[in-house]
């Protein structure tokens, strides 16, 4: 027998294991990329061949955060210029200040234009931007005239945060032949018959063919995945998800993920969920078998084989399906799949033993999903399936109770309270229902396993921000939205580590600092358990450890 592999002992300012058997420790010992033990430094030094590594001694260690609902697009967006309302940190660590007014948007684009030109981009190379959210600039409207202040020669395409709208400049319209003769719904015109530069919905965006396609093509560039990893490292996240990929059984797609994620330098694990396409029972059966087969392609860092379906739209887009009384302004949202087809689509995946997550923002969508799960479990009982309601924003106590009985989990969109809480109170559902949204307290009290998410790029990736939202429920206007639904710091930190790991069926591998699990850490500069909870989201992240290797934040 040879001597055991080297063991590194990392003493820290504090270690919070999220493992109730040993919640805190002085240090962690790492061997072969896994946690070997936690304890006092003295205890750990008794391990044969162990040496102390002092590099983390001033940091606070937690299990690496697990993001159970994100999209790889969150990396690709950074290949375009950010012009959102809130400060946002890029994968390289650069903080892009939020654009508080349209003037700031124009200024941001001017700088980006100068950078493009300085980098030698040809005159037709479009300037692509993302993240603009007009909901924050009431009474103002970004149009071509504004973008012409940035450039009268280079095409400019600004995708709004909703992805349902884009604004372009006159140079782009000239380039793509968009003019008074272009007759199209979703292409508003001014008094003299000229398009104002707003392209509403994808069909109108397609008029800006080259820029529109380039915008999406870049999402699949290799750099896009690496940016996603960079975002993880900067936020203490060690396990990511791509929640809904229609091509996840395609060998080329699998290879694309492998090439990046399995690279030693890629700083995160990634679970890629398959997004099924409705079809005949035979086609679905075949598709489920293909998803089962992809499980064999999994590695320590890359996971395949779970399933994600989308049932309704979004609340801020007025497209989520709500029960009575619907939206303040009346009407209801849209179905993305026919409600009576949900069980049929999920059946083969459920029968094949796969884990299913379903996007349900509105409470009517939740009903549809719960009915489907009830039917499927009656037909084909399963233990410990962990089928999860994603977003779960307007779920009622009785629905949570039913979820608990059915063995289901909730992944709550906690970040909404900050990003749209004020708008939910004033525009979408009114103050009473807004105060009940993303009710993490109710979920926990009724025994539903809980996780919370960012849905990056919809909101920025980052477990501490998500936890901060659930703990404080503050909105930008300074309101505490639904104080009764706040949860404790410990509960919130559990949700973004063990809670999420449970829903990804990875709790045996990640989510706590426990012997045998992957040595994945969030390395923090302050202690989330002792800091004023209002400052949770401001805790600096020094980086992560993934499988025993330290990745410093950019």
């Amino acid at each position, binding site marked *: 027998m040879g001597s055991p592999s080297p063991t590194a002992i990392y003493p820290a300012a504090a270690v919070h294991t999220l493992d109730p058997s040993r919640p805190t420790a002085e240090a962690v010992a790492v061997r072969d990329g896994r946690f070997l033990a936690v304890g006092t430094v003295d205890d750990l030094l008794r391990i044969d061949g162990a040496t102390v590594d002092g590099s983390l001694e001033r940091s606070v260690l937690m299990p690496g955060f697990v993001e159970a609902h994100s*999209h*790889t697009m969150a990396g690709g967006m950074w290949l375009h210029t950010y012009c959102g309302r809130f400060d946002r940190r890029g994968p390289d660590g650069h903080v892009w200040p939020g654009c508080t007014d349209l003037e700031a948007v124009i200024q941001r684009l001017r700088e980006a234009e100068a950078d493009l030109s300085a980098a030698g981009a040809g005159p037709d190379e479009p300037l692509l931007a993302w993240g603009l959210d007009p909901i924050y600039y009431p009474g103002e409207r970004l149009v071509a005239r504004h973008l012409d202040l940035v450039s009268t020669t280079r095409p400019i395409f600004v995708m709004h945060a909703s992805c349902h709208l884009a604004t372009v400049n006159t140079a782009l319209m000239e380039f793509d*032949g968009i003019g008074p003769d272009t007759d*199209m719904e979703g292409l508003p015109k001014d008094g003299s018959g000229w398009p104002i530069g707003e392209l509403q*919905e994808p069909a109108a965006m397609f*008029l800006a063919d080259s820029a529109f396609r380039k915008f999406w093509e870049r999402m699949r560039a290799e750099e896009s995945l690496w940016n996603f990893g960079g975002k993880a490292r900067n936020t203490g996240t060690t396990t990511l998800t791509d929640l809904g990929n229609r091509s996840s059984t395609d060998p080329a797609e699998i290879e694309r993920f492998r090439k990046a994620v399995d690279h030693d330098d890629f700083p995160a694990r990634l679970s890629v969920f398959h*997004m099924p396409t409705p079809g005949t029972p035979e086609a679905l059966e075949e598709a489920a078998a293909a998803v089962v087969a992809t499980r064999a392609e999994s590695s320590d860092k890359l996971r395949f084989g779970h399933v994600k379906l989308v049932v309704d739209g979004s609340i801020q887009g007025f497209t989520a399906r709500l029960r009575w009384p619907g939206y303040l302004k009346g009407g209801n949202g849209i179905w993305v799949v026919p*409600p*009576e087809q949900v069980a049929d689509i999920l059946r083969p995946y459920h029968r094949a033993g796969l884990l299913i997550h379903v996007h349900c923002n509105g409470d009517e969508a939740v009903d549809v999903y719960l009915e489907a799960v009830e039917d499927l479990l009656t037909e084909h009982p399963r233990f410990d399936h962990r089928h999860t309601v994603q977003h779960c924003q307007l779920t009622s106590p009785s629905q949570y109770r039913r979820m608990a009985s059915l063995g289901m989990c909730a992944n709550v969109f906690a970040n909404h309270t900050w990003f749209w809480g004020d708008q939910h109170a004033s525009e979408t559902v009114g103050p009473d229902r807004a105060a009940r949204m993303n009710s993490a307290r109710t979920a926990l009290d009724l025994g539903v396993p809980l996780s919370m998410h960012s849905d990056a790029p919809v909101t920025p990736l980052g477990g501490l921000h998500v936890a901060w939202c659930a703990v404080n429920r503050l909105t930008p206007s300074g309101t505490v939205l639904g104080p009764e639904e706040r949860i404790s710091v410990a509960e919130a930190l559990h949700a973004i580590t063990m809670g999420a790991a449970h829903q990804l069926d990875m709790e045996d591998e990640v989510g706590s600092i426990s012997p045998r699990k992957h040595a994945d850490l969030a390395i923090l500069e302050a202690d989330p358990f002792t800091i004023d909870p209002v400052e949770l989201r401001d805790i600096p992240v020094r980086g992560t450890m993934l499988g025993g290797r330290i990745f410093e934040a950019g």
Partner: protein
Amino acid sequence: MTAGSTRLPLTVVGGYLGAGKTTLVNRLLADPRGQRIAVLVNDFGEIGIDEVLIGEAADDPSILSLANGCVCCSLAEGFAKTLGKVRGMAHRLDRVVVEVSGVGEPAKVARWSRTPGFSPDGVVVVVDGSRIGEQLEDRRIGETVAAQVADADLLLLTRADLLDDEALAAAEAVLQPHSSAPTLRAPADPALLFGLEPVAGGSDADEHEPRDSAHAEHVSCSRVLREPIHRDTLDLWFQVRPRGVVRAKGILRMDGSPDMRSVVQVAGNHTSVTTSGAWSGDEPGGEAGAGAVVAIAMPGTPRAALVKWLGMLDS
């Protein structure tokens, strides 16, 4: 961008889950009347597109499979890519038909037909005659179905074979508050839903030979034009179309742009005029003429009404 090249007519087929959309499209593919047809099946949400099937009459009956994006908004890219591909094959196609998903919004999909390379050819919404009453009342899907019906230029009532006259009349009655589009009963002649080409030559108001005995009752009529048409005349003509007109199409010269081929479309409630390249002289009606129009109407429509209506363009 597309001046000089032809625009492919794009027909949207919508309707709730299981209404009979694919059945209709398959009928068209089985009897394409010499047309080369690309069919796009939009299976997922409003904007995902899965595959392109090319009708039998195509030079190359290949099936293009398309990888899709992942998140809902990136599905639009899939559609854009597909349409880009179809546009690239325009020279070996005559029309495009898009089957929308069972919860999709047909009018939203129809917007794509106004992008370069395509021309709008109407929205056909397929309705299950045996279920439409309960569907419109349904708490969950009622609004979705009503919105689809409201998007229709033409309605097609399926399962007519299973319904008695009373039930059929009842189905038509529940549709009425939601749409003024002409309602056809399945199985309908694909030409009613997807249009006929105006024929070359022919006398004034020449009646077509019925091509399919099952549909012999439909009334159709065509007319060759002598003079370019004024836009105002056309707009008036659109407005005064006789009840029962399901389809009309003209390839003609407008007096404002006599050197261009103008394509005039009526599909139930939908009307449009688009230009499609330069006037070549090979158009129906001959070199000296100003083009031709053809119209089809529901059974029972007086032929005289059609004759008079088409005559308006040539007076």
